């Protein structure tokens, strides 16, 4: 009995081969090749004493705890069991040969020199991925998902969304940190629309650039285990926006479409240890985040070229009607522009429009002014009239006359738009009390 060294090939020969083998010989060979290989044995030369059922001399081949046959005889002999060119293949990496010769090789008193056999074996790669090559019939597949054979071995891999476990064989769903950064896409529960696995702790994160808003649209079918009385006790689909939960869903009624107004959305999916619901699928899209529609604070405010929708980086310009000033607090503004920011807010709040005030009119030396309008104030479109202290002075005006109006620019101007006020000039030669002669 001699163990054959773990080589990739070799030969087995009967003792003394090519000389006739001795009588009363029992030779055993244990062929072993490296793991990942199987043994393939062929007889190059086979010449044993033939007998019925190989009763006298024989070689017995065994592998994988099964007999591969008992052989004897010569090529062309009517009795015996010559192996011919047969290839003996093990399932494992071992093969056992046992040779037995009886006490003689005489036939009718004549010694016939049977020379024995010469056999070659080689290690053949075992395709571990072939289920037919399973060592045990009740063994399952080598890998839960994908099996990859190579010379001398094999390895397993998993489908997308699964992770190979430490046993290098089984696959478990990997959905704890799925990241989506494209402007649009699809995400779904594992195996969708097939029932999702149990014990899931999935986290799908959508992260887009600032200024974009994610919109979620649930597709059909939508099935998550539920309870009639208790809200989502078994499995839950949660949606978080910037860390804040905005909804928890289960059941068979789709949430429809959700506008998140955020560039950061997380979808969490938790399942318990059982259930046969088909899960969910979401088509997400993105658009520039919207800002609230600008609303004037008063009836004198004008929003230039208003748009039906304002989105990130859009802006609007505000002005006032004629005779009104843009004001922010107590400060007068020359202009106003607000830009829609990435967070959906305007970078400045809406100003207000305040009526122009021209202030007190310039006093007229040797004269006075009076208000034409009843309200007697200095606001836009108020009107005053200048006059002189008659009869000692007379008024001299420009071509615009003696009426001054509070202009949109905040100045008092005459009808020609000039700001220069009239002048009171002396009246000459008009004594109030001239001399009167009586006696003639």
């Amino acid at each position, binding site marked *: 009995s001699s163990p054959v060294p773990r080589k990739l090939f070799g030969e087995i020969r009967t003792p003394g081969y090519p000389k006739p083998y001795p009588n009363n010989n029992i030779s055993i060979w244990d062929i072993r090749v490296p793991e990942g290989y199987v043994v393939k044995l062929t007889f190059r030369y086979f010449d044993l004493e033939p007998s019925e059922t190989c009763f006298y001399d024989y070689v017995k081949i065994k592998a994988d705890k099964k007999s591969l046959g008992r052989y004897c005889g010569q090529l062309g002999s009517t009795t015996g069991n010559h192996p011919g060119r047969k290839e003996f293949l093990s399932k494992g990496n071992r093969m056992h040969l046992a040779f037995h010769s009886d006490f003689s090789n005489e036939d009718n008193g004549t010694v016939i020199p049977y020379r024995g056999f010469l056999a070659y074996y080689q290690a053949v790669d075992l395709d571990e991925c072939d289920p037919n090559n399973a060592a045990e019939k009740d063994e399952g597949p080598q890998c839960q998902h994908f099996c990859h054979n190579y010379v001398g071995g094999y390895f397993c891999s998993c489908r997308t969304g699964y992770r190979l476990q430490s046993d290098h064989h089984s696959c478990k769903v990997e959905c704890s940190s799925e990241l989506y950064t494209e402007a649009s896409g699809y995400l779904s529960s594992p195996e969708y629309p097939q029932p999702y696995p149990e014990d899931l702790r999935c986290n799908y994160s959508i992260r887009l650039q600032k200024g974009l808003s994610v919109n979620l649209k649930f597709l059909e079918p939508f099935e998550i285990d539920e309870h009639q009385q208790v809200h989502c006790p078994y499995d839950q689909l949660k949606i978080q926006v910037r860390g804040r939960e905005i909804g928890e869903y289960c059941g068979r009624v789709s949430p429809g479409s959700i506008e998140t107004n955020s560039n950061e959305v997380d979808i969490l999916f938790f399942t318990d240890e059982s259930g046969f619901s088909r899960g969910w699928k979401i088509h997400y899209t993105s658009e520039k985040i919207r800002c609230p529609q600008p609303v004037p604070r008063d009836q004198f405010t004008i929003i230039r070229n208003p748009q039906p929708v304002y989105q990130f980086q859009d802006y609007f310009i505000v002005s006032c009607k004629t005779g009104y000033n843009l004001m922010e607090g107590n400060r007068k503004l020359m202009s106003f522009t607000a830009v829609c920011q990435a967070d959906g807010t305007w970078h400045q709040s809406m100003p207000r429009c305040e009526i122009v005030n021209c202030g007190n009119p310039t006093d007229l030396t040797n004269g006075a002014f009076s208000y034409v309008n009843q309200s007697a104030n200095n606001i836009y479109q108020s009107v005053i009239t200048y006059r002189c202290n008659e009869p000692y002075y007379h008024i001299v005006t420009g071509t615009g006359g003696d009426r001054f109006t509070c202009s949109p620019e905040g100045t008092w101007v005459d009808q020609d738009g000039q700001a220069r006020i009239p002048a009171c000039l*002396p009246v*000459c*030669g008009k004594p109030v*009390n*001239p001399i009167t002669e009586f006696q003639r």
Partner: protein
Amino acid sequence: ILGGKSAKRGNFPWQALTNIHGRGGGALLGDRWILTAAHTIFPKGAGGNNVSLDQLAEEADIFLGHTKVEELHKMGNHPIRRIFIHPDYNPQDEHNFNGDIALLELKHAVTLGPTVLPICLPDTTNTTFYMDGHLGYVSGFGVEKNFISNHLKYVSLPAVAREKCQHWLDNKKGDMPMVFSENMFCAGYPTGKQDTCQGDSGSVFTVLDRGSGRWVATGIVSWGIGCAEGYGFYTKILNYVDWIKGIVRED
């Protein structure tokens, strides 16, 4: 004023009382000019004419707004900023009062009212005011019956034809060869007792323009031979209107 009457307040609101080299008069133009005679500032033959105009302006007293001298003084004087003497006036020539006209610019404009009002200047196209017999009025604080008056007086005098003035003057020429230039006119009566006199110099001879209803200054009391002994001679303002406007408007 000889042979005149007392003026009431408001009769001659343009009348100014001056005290530069003694009593004189003037007339308000606009609200900050005083029209007067140049010789009230640079008297003829006076040795002190070396004083500068600035100093004279500083020292001159001008009063407005009343008919009584005492009340005028109480109301306070109106300081002068500048003095303009007509370039034709020659203080050295005692016999020639040609160019006897000056303007005084007040430092502060006066507020007009019933007792302070300006006189008008004549329209340069209208010469009727100087025609023989055209009546005018002269007011002043000058001598009356040998006493300087403390009250504003006025007298009505007719303008006289140039020939009459010259003829009368020629008869007087033997004693004093006075010049009667075209820039003068005379008014009054050859033997009448109504005339202007010392202290009235600088006051204005005014006429009522009935067309406009305004009183117009046609002359400035300038010189005479005695008082109430014949005609009085006045600077003809009509010939100086451009000069006056040139100064007043420029300012």
